[in-house]
């Protein structure tokens, strides 16, 4: 093996080992996608696969969902803290404890230590969103839950397999605590099979390159990402900005929850101060540390080089300040199951603050979170209880190069809709319509993406619906940038079998009779730049594509005039050498 005098691998050997590690993670992902049962994993890609160094540093990850960016390394580190001296080859760990490095109870991590000559060498790991892990609500999640104990089975890192044999005791605990044990266990075994494939691939890499070189490649992969991110940061002007945004409530219908961030970029370091955010809330909107960290990683990648490999090297150039007891760093046993909403708002706030420091990179705001729809039912196919978990995305914000995207899951999330065919074949539900909503976009030189309208009809028997949304409060709808207009707010409507509309809050769990209809309308993205400057050809195409509501031409809602209501999103920035306020419509 050729090495440079400093003991580093030569660049070619590094690339070869690095490609082998990425390939291992990708193959793990392919196995997961093909052999899992739950639509949320196999159709919607709500999972991740990764390789870790012996100390738990994330080395290579197959990218499926950014919400899980870099989060798993904290779980590996918790597992090490608990098991370091008691692990044996063939052990497989399972964990979902939000206060031990996990994100929320439905995201179950399966981790496999890889040994070489009896010594710990590396880890392979997968995390996947399981539709139900028990608890009060079908689908486990619920914004109104007040403590972690209500959020289903909580697993600190424990052994799913010991020395290569599945532990029947832990399996019995799992199967007696979840609503669809067969599908849960099958998916967990698929996760374990993926880890095992990753282990074999790592062993092949070691066989070919030698353990020393592979270990060096782990360290160098982190160094490279750090160096690339630092170089990209250095190229950006220094500056400082703060931004705030709000959750509709505290998860329980209470007052809005403030999310605030102050960004400061100096040379090749970024500091992210979140201490202006609200204290932890009574409902389940609190964000465990692994998730808060993942949002910051997302911002760093978006600002520097989105094509960068995902690993822990990027965390070396950021300081995150957030006191314990914050909604973004809660103390146990605060409930966290709907932390995704808050993460998405934090992502939006961070991107808005970054857009304020660097208007040349500005992006308008997108839908802050998908609307989550969980329905408890009996599968028409298996006769077993099953939970449909759907997520309905919205429009992304417009940006300097063009319009936002229509009907996608924005920011940290990259999850698809449940396909109509799958939804209707596997669950007792009819999906009556799925369509884009013309006129929901913020106007601008470039326009935001459109929101989605989707309707579910409950079939067969009464079913329990858990639904949660943000931005139903029009003050918190997606903001335009640099003179662009705001997107429309989100709207939830439920009709009983007679067609009468029910009054519902923004987040709720209720039982619906067959024939009831749930209608979800998600917000559109914000616009970019003065709408008067939209190119006439695009206008014509908008009209031809039916993207505009002809009657709304005179409406001021999304034409760039910012409502200056109390609590509306605010942004302030200063940049080295000059003061600027890049958002002309700011109050």
């Amino acid at each position, binding site marked *: 093996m050729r090495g*440079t005098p400093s003991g580093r691998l*030569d*660049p*070619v050997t*590094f*690339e*070869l080992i690095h*490609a*082998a590690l*990425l*390939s291992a993670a*990708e*193959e793990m992902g*392919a*196995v997961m*996608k*093909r*052999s*899992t*049962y739950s*639509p949320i994993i*196999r*159709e919607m890609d709500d999972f991740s696969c990764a390789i870790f160094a012996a100390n738990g540093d994330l080395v290579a990850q197959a990218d499926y969902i950014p919400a899980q960016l870099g989060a798993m390394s904290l779980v590996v580190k918790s597992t090490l803290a608990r098991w370091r001296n008691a692990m044996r080859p063939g052990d497989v760990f399972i964990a979902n404890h939000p206060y031990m490095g996990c994100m929320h109870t439905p995201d179950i991590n399966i981790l496999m230590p890889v040994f070489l000559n009896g010594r710990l060498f590396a880890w392979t790991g997968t995390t996947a969103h399981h539709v139900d892990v028990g608890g009060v609500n079908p689908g486990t999640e619920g914004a109104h839950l007040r403590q972690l104990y209500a959020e289903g089975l909580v697993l600190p890192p424990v052994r799913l397999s010991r020395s290569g044999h599945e532990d029947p005791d832990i399996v019995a605990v799992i199967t007696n605590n979840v609503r669809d044990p*067969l*599908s849960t266990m*099958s998916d967990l*075994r*698929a996760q*374990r*099979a993926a880890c*095992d*494939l990753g282990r074999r691939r790592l062993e092949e890499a070691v066989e070919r390159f030698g353990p020393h070189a592979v270990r060096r490649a782990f360290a160098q992969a982190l*160094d*490279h*990402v750090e*160096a*690339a991110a630092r*170089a*990209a940061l250095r190229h950006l002007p220094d500056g400082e900005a703060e931004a705030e945004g709000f959750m509709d409530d505290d998860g329980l219908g209470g007052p809005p929850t403030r999310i605030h961030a102050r960004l400061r970029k100096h040379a090749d370091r970024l500091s992210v101060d979140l201490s202006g955010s609200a204290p932890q809330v009574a409902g389940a909107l609190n964000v465990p540390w692994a998730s808060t960290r993942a949002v910051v990683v997302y911002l760093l990648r978006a600002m520097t080089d989105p094509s960068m490999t995902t690993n822990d090297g990027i965390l070396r150039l950021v300081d995150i300040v957030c006191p314990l007891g914050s909604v973004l760093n809660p103390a146990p046993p605060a409930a966290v199951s709907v932390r995704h909403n808050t993460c998405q708002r934090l992502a939006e706030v961070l991107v808005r603050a970054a857009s304020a420091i660097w208007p040349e990179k500005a992006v308008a705001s997108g839908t802050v979170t998908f609307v989550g729809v969980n329905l408890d039912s009996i*599968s028409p*196919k*298996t006769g077993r209880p099953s939970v449909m978990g759907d997520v309905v995305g919205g429009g992304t914000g417009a940006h300097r190069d063009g319009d936002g995207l229509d009907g996608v899951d924005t920011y940290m999330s990259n999850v698809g809709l449940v396909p109509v065919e*799958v939804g209707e074949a596997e669950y007792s539900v009819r999906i009556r319509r799925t369509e884009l909503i013309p006129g929901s976009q913020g106007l601008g030189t470039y326009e935001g993406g459109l929101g989605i309208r989707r309707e579910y009809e409950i079939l067969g028997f009464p079913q329990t619906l858990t639904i949660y949304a943000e931005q139903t409060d029009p003050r918190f709808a997606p903001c335009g940038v640099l003179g662009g207009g705001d997107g429309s707010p989100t709207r939830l409507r439920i009709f009983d079998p007679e067609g009468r509309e029910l009054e519902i809050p923004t987040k709720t769990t209720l039982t619906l009779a067959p024939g009831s209809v749930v209608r979800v309308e998600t917000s559109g993205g914000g616009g970019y730049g003065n709408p008067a400057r939209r190119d006439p050809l695009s206008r014509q195409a908008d009209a031809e594509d039916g993207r505009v509501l002809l009657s709304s031409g005179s409406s001021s809602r999304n034409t760039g005039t910012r409502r200056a209501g109390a609590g509306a999103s605010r942004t302030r920035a200063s940049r080295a050498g000059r003061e600027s306020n890049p958002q002309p419509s700011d109050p």
Partner: protein
Amino acid sequence: MTVGAGGGSIASVDASGRLRVGPQSAGADPGPAAYGRGGKDATLTDAHVVIGSLGADTSLAGRMHLDLDASRDAVGGIADKLGMDVEEAGEGIVAVAMANVVRALRRVSVERGIDPRGYSLVAFGGAGPLHAGRLLRELRLNRVVVPRHPGLFSAAGLVAADLRIDDSQTVLRTFDPDRVDDLVAWYRDAAARMLRPLREDGIPRARARLMGAADCRYVGQGFELTVPLRGLGVRDVRGLAERFHVLHERTYGHANRAEPVELVTLRLSGFGTLPAPSPAPLRRGASKPSRTALVGERSLLLPRARRRRLVPVLDRETLLAGNRIEGPAIVEEMDSTTLILPGQRAKVDALGNLWIQEVK
């Protein structure tokens, strides 16, 4: 899935000092620096020129000659950034490009439920055979076959392909070994339906081949595995679940024999072997290629070697059936160059295909 690893793929060094190859390509115009059409970027082709697997005596497509100096200059730019000598950098570019191909091949194979080991790779196109030996080794493939005239392979395939008819029927029900009569009947009827058009196309029963299969999954899974059947009889169909468990285990590393198996689609393929426009069989030769096949020697840097080595160059058109070529060796023909690595052996079959294998 497309991999950016053609001859025109451009090598670059990023801000953190990492060597990247592709996905940007110099295309055919200006193309690699070696084409002498003004291309300045170091491409995969230039890297091959620098390490010697393509030589000054190689004439691409029979007429284009390579500009060695232009390739060395282009690859030299990468070498300086990496702090390597130019040949090391050339070999590095080829190795990184191969790692990208391996990664993509692994991923598409696993997505289809296939382990590439144990399969044979068909290497064709102008540049495929140049990388065949490397892919054989990296992917631990069983064999690589390089057809005659690899540059014309796709066109020749269109002319020579056998007839094939596919039929399928969705069933979507839990598999029950005691309820297979209707399944067997479907295969029997489909076979009869298939033999008729084959006969009309001039395929007698003796030259028709039928292959049955069924797409199965565990109840609740979203993807199926296609399970081939041994035959189309009752016993073959009854054994479907067991064959599925075995295939699932092999593909994903786990199977659950207690779990019901869902039958999704029945499949039957009928093949009509056409009188192939068979290339005249090659004359049989000794196991050692004749002296006239050896047309030269080329100095080249082999993978993971420290210095260049003289490697024999053989003329594909002069090889005879039964010839064995011990690597390292280069086999050249008008439309392609095949590189056989040390430790590999190529055999020429009766039709002139080159089969490359690792010598165990």
